[in-house]
């Protein structure tokens, strides 16, 4: 058996006093898609930051592709939430995707090869015709797909996504699901999400993070879901159910 792509062993992490993550251990074998779920403030984003090498665990060890996270960075593709960005920033879709090749650029211009890889990445998310459009002109779904293309331009062995369907219309979400399902066939994916649809379509297994972690098999039972999101926190599943019943009070539209 080949060694796992992600291996976390007894990881502890805190910013201040209380532990954000306690005794976190899990592995992700090659080719698997792992969905990471859990309540807000449960440590999902922190876990992602540790895997990316942006934060150091206080205790425990993390290895990615057999290396430290920092050394493995260039072999990972990271997709942050598209809504985080300044929509007025003057930049085209292609320019953003080219950022995925920054580690191969010392100075000056990107090589022809880098341009080809970036265009191919845009093609993979069906945005080839939007390459020279300014970021500001793209829709929410298109912006999120640009972020995925940028991660693909890294030619990653491991793809990390942070809530790719947050703030996105349901119809666009289906498109996104299709793209991710295709990607899943040839790379290892770790996906942080609130979206239980996404979990059931994409996840091979589920990691629930609420300071400690639990692994669940799919499909999740209603009981498990309630357990995971205990404490009356509004969850995506709830929003979705209401949305489908025509109640849009919980929806966030642009």
């Amino acid at each position, binding site marked *: 058996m080949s060694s796992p792509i992600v291996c976390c062993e007894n990881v502890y992490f805190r910013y201040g006093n209380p532990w954000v993550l306690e005794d976190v251990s899990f592995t992700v074998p090659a080719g698997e898609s792992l969905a990471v779920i859990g309540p807000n403030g449960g440590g999902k984003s922190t876990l992602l930051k540790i895997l990316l090498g*942006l934060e150091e665990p206080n205790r425990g060890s993390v290895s990615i592709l057999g290396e430290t996270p920092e050394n493995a*960075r260039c072999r990972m593709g990271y997709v942050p939430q598209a809504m985080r960005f*300044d929509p007025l920033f003057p930049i085209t879709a292609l320019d953003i995707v080219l*950022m995925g090749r920054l*580690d191969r650029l010392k*100075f*000056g211009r*990107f090589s022809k090869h880098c341009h080809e890889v970036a265009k191919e990445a845009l093609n993979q998310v069906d945005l080839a015709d939007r390459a020279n459009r*300014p970021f500001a002109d793209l829709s929410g779904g298109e912006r999120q797909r640009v972020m995925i293309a940028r991660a693909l331009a*890294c030619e990653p062995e491991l793809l990390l996504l942070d809530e790719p369907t947050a703030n996105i219309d349901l119809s666009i979400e289906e498109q996104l699901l299709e793209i991710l399902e295709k990607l899943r066939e040839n790379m290892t994916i770790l996906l942080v999400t609130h979206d239980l649809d996404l979990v059931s379509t994409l996840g091979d297994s589920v990691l629930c993070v609420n300071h400690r972690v639990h692994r669940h098999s799919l499909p999740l039972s209603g009981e498990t879901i309630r357990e995971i999101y205990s404490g009356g926190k509004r969850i995506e599943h709830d929003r979705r159910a209401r949305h489908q019943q025509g109640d849009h009070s919980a929806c966030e539209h642009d």
Partner: protein
Amino acid sequence: MTEFFEAIQNVPLIRYSLLAGIVSSLMFGVVGSFVVTRRIGYIAAAIAHSILGGIGAAIYFNRVHGVEWLTPMIGAIAAALISAAVIGWVTIQFKEREDTIIGAIWAFGMATGLMFIYFAPGTQTNLESFIMGNILITSEKDVIATVVLGALVLLFVALFYHKLVAVCFDEEFASLRGVSARVYYLLLLAITGICMVLLVRVAGIILSLALIVLPAATASRFAGRLWVIMIVAVVLSIIYNVGGLALSFQMSVPTGPLIVLVACTVYAASFFVKRRAR
């Protein structure tokens, strides 16, 4: 206008001013585009105000301790770089509120400058030229200094354009791709500081902010890519600086305020022109 062209031919001072104006316009357009898109206009303003501290210190040490080499220009550049470093370092290191640091540096620089100038013996220093600006004090030495600084800044931006853009757009991702985001951010603040020194010469401390922000802001209303904004901003800067010089010479009014008024009018007018097609 003929009088202005005659003056260019006959008065070296006007020639120098013109050359310095064109070279610094290149910088203002390019660096101003970063300032506007990265939204660090107020950092630029704080640096501009802190420059008075450097000018004051230079005058004081020059007169009291006879430090000949310490000209107001060198003092200004040192102050600008120190303020840029402090603002950058404190915001990165201590996660302190940016606007608080900006306010502190802003006032600290002004206060130090006023204090040094108060204690400096000799003829009363003409504060007005620093505060209101006067492009017509350019000497040959200053022109050389401007050209060298301009060349350095433009070369830096040309070489590392993509990294600077990436750091401005998404610091986190840039550092994941092996770009030291903090270093580039500090360097961006440093070149902004150098620009502010040159701008203070043209328009003075108070008006300098308008000249780094307005050309790029006007350009960004119509252009969708940063390098396009830069080109338009450079052209606008040259028109403002050179046109302002000619016009103020012709009408014998102060250059700085005239340039700023023109820049503001063009920016305001840009709101009545349709934005680029969506």
